[in-house]
């Protein structure tokens, strides 16, 4: 090569990487350890739901099923009793969907409008209302149950789907508005100004410019709201009628019923079945979620 031979010796190319550096062992070790902590309950739920009752009484809860049975799942879905109705979770499933869809849409819509108005159309006092709203996130909801019953009654919405949608919208509003406000604040003012010069008004800008840009934050809002609304039990049962009771009512009945023996396998199957919808949504939108949070949540 060159005449300066002393320079040519020695390392060349990429630094060799060993798989088992202390750093890697630490990083992956810690991650795996935590993964066990997070997965353990899921494992327990799954294996238990696949065991028969005798096996549950005998073995330990972590061991995989000797004999796999899907009976608990069948029972949880279509046979478990709530009072005199023995049709399992299936009874409430469609109700849950029926509640979930309008509640999610309306609550996100309202919150996004709020966030938009608060970030781009501030008016006198708007920040005060926002502060009140955020403080509202910390109010224990128990204390608002009765007053809201009365308000809904006066509005003639009590017991209807739309009453419940309204309740979900109200209770989701603080965090949702916060998310959207932060997100929209991050959208350059210039874009908003350009649209105003182009003759778009409040709604025009919102619908044609802002909404199409807010996919990441909508994903976050959707995930949070779907989780909350789908898992809700109390509001669903207090503000609606049996025709509309969500799936969690059946889950609650299955899990909380004081019967001869607790059918753990059915409980677990029911639990998993109920959690399925949000879980699926989580796994589908994992990456978007982090991106959305980055865009909307972490700009204090």
């Amino acid at each position: 090569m060159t005449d300066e031979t002393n320079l040519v010796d020695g390392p060349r190319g990429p630094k060799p990487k060993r798989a088992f550096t202390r750093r890697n062992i630490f990083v992956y070790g810690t991650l795996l350890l935590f993964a066990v902590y997070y997965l353990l309950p899921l494992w327990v739920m799954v294996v238990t739901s696949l065991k028969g009752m005798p096996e549950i009484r005998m073995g330990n809860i972590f061991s995989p099923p000797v004999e796999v049975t899907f009976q608990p799942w069948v029972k949880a879905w279509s046979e478990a009793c709530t009072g005199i109705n023995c049709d399992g979770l299936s009874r409430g499933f469609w109700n849950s969907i029926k509640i979930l869809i309008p509640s999610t849409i309306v609550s996100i819509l309202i919150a996004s409008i709020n966030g938009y108005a608060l970030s781009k159309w501030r008016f006198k006092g708007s920040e005060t209302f926002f502060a009140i709203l955020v403080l509202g996130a910390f109010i224990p909801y128990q204390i608002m149950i009765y007053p809201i019953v009365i308000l809904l009654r006066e509005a003639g919405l009590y017991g209807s789907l739309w009453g419940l949608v309204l309740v979900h919208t109200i209770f989701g509003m603080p965090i949702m508005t916060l998310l959207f406000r932060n997100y929209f604040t991050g959208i350059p003012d210039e874009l908003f100004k350009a649209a105003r010069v182009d003759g778009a008004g409040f709604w025009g800008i919102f619908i044609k410019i802002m909404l199409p840009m807010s996919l990441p934050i909508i994903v976050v809002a959707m995930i949070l709201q779907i989780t909350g609304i789908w898992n809700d039990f109390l509001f669903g049962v207090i503000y609606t009628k049996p025709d509309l009771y969500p799936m969690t009512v059946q889950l609650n009945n299955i899990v909380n019923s004081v019967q001869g023996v607790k059918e753990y396998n059915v409980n677990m199957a029911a639990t998993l079945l109920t959690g399925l919808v949000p879980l699926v949504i989580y796994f589908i939108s994992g990456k978007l979620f982090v991106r959305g949070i980055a865009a909307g949540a972490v700009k204090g």
Partner: protein
Amino acid sequence: TELEVSHWWTSGGEAAAVTELAKAFDASGDKWKDSAIAAGGGGAAAIIISRILGGDPMGATQLNHGRDAEELIKAGLLQDLTDVAEKENWREIIRPSSLLDSCTFEGRIYCAPVNIHSPQWLWLSHKAFKDAGIPVPKNWSEFIAAAPALDKAGKLPLAVGQQAWQSNLTFNAITIAISGLEPWKKVYVDKNAEVAGGEEFKKVFEAADQARKISAKGKMQDWNAATAMVIKGDAGGQIMGDWAQGEFQLAGQVAGEDYTCLPGLGVTEMISTGGDAFYFPVLKDAEQTAAQKRLAALIIQKDTQVAFNLKKGSLPIRGDVDLETANDCMKKGIKILAGNNVLPDLSQVISADTMSDLEDLMVEFWNDPSMTTEEAQERFVKVIARAD
């Protein structure tokens, strides 16, 4: 006409009993729309009351038999059933008559009782005592005396679930057994704080202290988990209401052979008569109102009573029905009832507020060994003094 009926009877036997009611109602051409909420009395109360306040109530609802409904009645939200009662002659047929009294407010009747439950029973496992090599006790003091032997044999002498209402139930049963009737009435009915702080109750607390010591090793939550221990012979006994025998029955055990029941803990053969009742919120629709009254009448009828109570394992609210199929323990109960050796139920004499105070106190007393009997009694006095 379709009527929505709310209740919290969701366990197997309970659901079967409700099915009987529903069947009977449907047979008469109406439609029973079932709305069951397994949230226990408290959770359900929030739901039921919200529904009534929300102006879109159910057709009929289970509510705690007692003073729960007073304010709803005052607010004019519950249906007046006096005309039904008069037509069906409830005054005559409902036994004991105190049941109807608790449905009565200012002379009008607002609810239809369905069954009677009594909470003061001691259930004993024959197997446990056999394993310990001692005879089955015949009353509370023998039971206490047998505790060390049970303990030695690796049995839990007394099984008490950790829920607050169980602690309170156990304490109340012990009170009646230890103090006798008069002091109990003075404290709970007359709210006499002096008696609550007096000698008799001191003894009660000491007895309760013994009971908690021999139950300390138990780790179960639900009452039927505790009952299951008695059934299996892992525990010597449990103080529980008559609904426990449903569990024994379900496990195929025979009263007198596999287990023994001692009403009033075998000391005072007195039982109190709680139970469930149906209330009927005021509805706008006249047809539904008529259906409500039909349901009210139906609940009291003989056939319904028999069918319901056999499945539920509780006692009927009328003395003129014959439960041939009833078992040993049930019969003991009917006999006491017939002899009119009855006490009012706790929920009839104290408010839900006081009840919850008592439960808070008892559950703490039962689970915190460092709480002395003196301290417990002192707080008990406070609660009674505040009670209304």
